[in-house]
């Protein structure tokens, strides 16, 4: 890895770990392995969002040309968000692509992601299904995102209605993850979800 990249990452880690956000447990970064090529990030769900109280794990890969090229970031924790793939965790955020600037740091990236969670952009979606739900049925989107945050990211609110629907699908031999994904994409219509799974 280029010397400048390693130096940058070292200094950025120092910056992040000494920042206010870490002190408030809002964001967190740690190294994975000895090299500085891969890091593990963690962001807290921003308040007043369906993700509040949940913590999302991120995979950060530092390219060789860092900081002149953006780091590759994706969600490890499953999340129901229009700009994040509900399957792969890929993030659609301009600063992680063409809008990257060399002056940006890990801290700014994580804070940007937090901001993204707080203000989803359904018009520039990564996951079209989620984006449509977000636009058409914001209420269901909110509940679904909350439910996903609860199921995968340790969110506090439990939706018993959704839980029951998942259990009924599970009784049919569907895995919990598949059941949740199908129900979420079918706006929690059990019949449609069943049809989708078994068609």
């Amino acid at each position, binding site marked *: 890895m280029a010397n400048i990249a390693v*130096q*940058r990452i*070292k*200094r950025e880690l120092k910056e992040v*770990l000494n920042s206010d956000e870490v002190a408030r447990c809002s964001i967190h970064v*740690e190294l994975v392995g000895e090299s500085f090529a891969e890091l593990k990030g963690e962001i807290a769900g921003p308040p007043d969002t369906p993700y509040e109280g949940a913590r999302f794990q991120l995979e950060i890969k530092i390219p060789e040309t860092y900081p002149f*090229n953006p780091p590759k970031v994706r969600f490890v924790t499953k999340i129901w968000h229009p700009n994040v793939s509900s399957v792969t965790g890929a993030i659609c955020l301009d600063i992680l692509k063409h809008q990257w600037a*060399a*002056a940006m740091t890990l801290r700014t990236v994580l804070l940007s992601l937090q901001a993204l969670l707080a203000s989803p952009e359904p018009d520039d979606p990564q996951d079209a299904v989620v984006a449509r739900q977000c636009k058409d049925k914001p209420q269901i989107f909110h509940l679904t995102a909350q439910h996903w945050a609860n199921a995968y990211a340790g969110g506090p609110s439990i939706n018993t209605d959704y839980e029951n629907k998942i259990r009924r699908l599970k009784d049919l031999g569907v895995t919990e993850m598949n059941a949740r994904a199908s129900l979420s994409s079918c706006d929690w219509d059990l019949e449609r979800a069943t049809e989708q799974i078994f068609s």
Partner: protein
Amino acid sequence: MAPSRRSTVTKVRATSRRSKASETNTDQSQNVSSSSEEKPFLLLEDVTCKICLNLMVKPVSLPCRHDLCYSCYTSCVEKSNLSCPMCRKRISVWCRQATKTNTVINEVLWQQIQAQFPELVASQNGEGKDEKDVEDFFPTVPMHQFAEPGELLKEFELEQERRRKEEEERRKEEEKASADLIAELAKEQAELARAEAELERIRQADEALALELAEKEDNIRKLRGSKIVQTPISSRKRPRKMSSDSKTTPAAKKINKFFPSRSNENDEPSRSPSAFAPVTEHFQKRDISMSEPRSSSCTSLESIDQEVSKRLHFRPINAAPLTPPKNSPGNSEIVKPQVVSAAKNLNQLYGLDGENLTEDLKQNNNSDEPIKGAGVLAEELREMEREWLRKKLEQEEADKELARKLQEELDQEAKSTRSLVNRSKGSKDEYQLRKIVKNQPTIEASFQRPSLRKSHPLP
């Protein structure tokens, strides 16, 4: 941070306005110097490159009022796009112009930085920079791990407990294993003891049987002792007294005292490894000295007996007559080996080493005594044995006397006959010459007839 950023923004606007007014580098450097004049003491924050997060080395001041290291600037231009890494403003025009006029580096600012932070600049150029960074960096890594008060102790205790349990388990396992092993060993030992007892039992039974047999044999011997001359001692008795072989040799020497001329010849065959060779040899020798048939047979058979007792078979004697007839040149008469006489001579021989036998028997009895505890019986047996041996010795003396007389007689006869033998051709005692063979005998043939050639020696 916020106010400085705001000021940057205003400066950017000012610069852009000025650049719009097509003002050149000199103007910009004036601008920089004027700004540094406003802030004569540079803040470290302001001269830290936003790209490498280090102190700016050879700073480059972009038209958007953003500064960065020259190295970061070049990397940015090469690897990224031609826009400011901070505000993404296009810098391609400025870049081209600055490169052309060689005014990329803001020398004024660079001098100021060098003046104000000489030690930092030095460390930046120095080699030990990286290590220092690492030292700076690594202690900060575990900062996020905080233990509740008493948590560590609890963890420690838990671990201790776990270790203790593990230890306990292991000890128990070990104990169990050793107990199993002990049980197994005990079983093995019991088995061994049982086997030993069995062996002991067999041994005692064997001993009893052996004693009984010895008794019977002694009785037989006693019976035969009355008619010593006729009774040859059974050859199967010999192997039983293997230990007395070495003692037989001195006894044989006693005989040889009476026949001093043959003593050497007798010793040799006893050392001979083959069982057959000595036999034939002896018969040959006997043929040479035909005048003493009895004594010679006696000695030859002695050696046979030695061989027999060593090799535990009596065959050589039976085989002996099968050897081709020898026409010894010195003797007119062909004497066939008389195996029948062997019995007598053997008997004599055994009689001679009677003392040894007694000794053997004594030993045997002594060894038997403690086991049986039948002292009286042993005494009786020994008495019987002694009696029998005494008789044998007497007989032996008589035989020896007779043998000597016979030898003398034969010697005389031989002397008288030898001078009178007619060796002339055609006579009865003529030399038997080899017939002339036309074809040279092949090697095979010579191999096939060694005994023949031996039996017809040239004169």
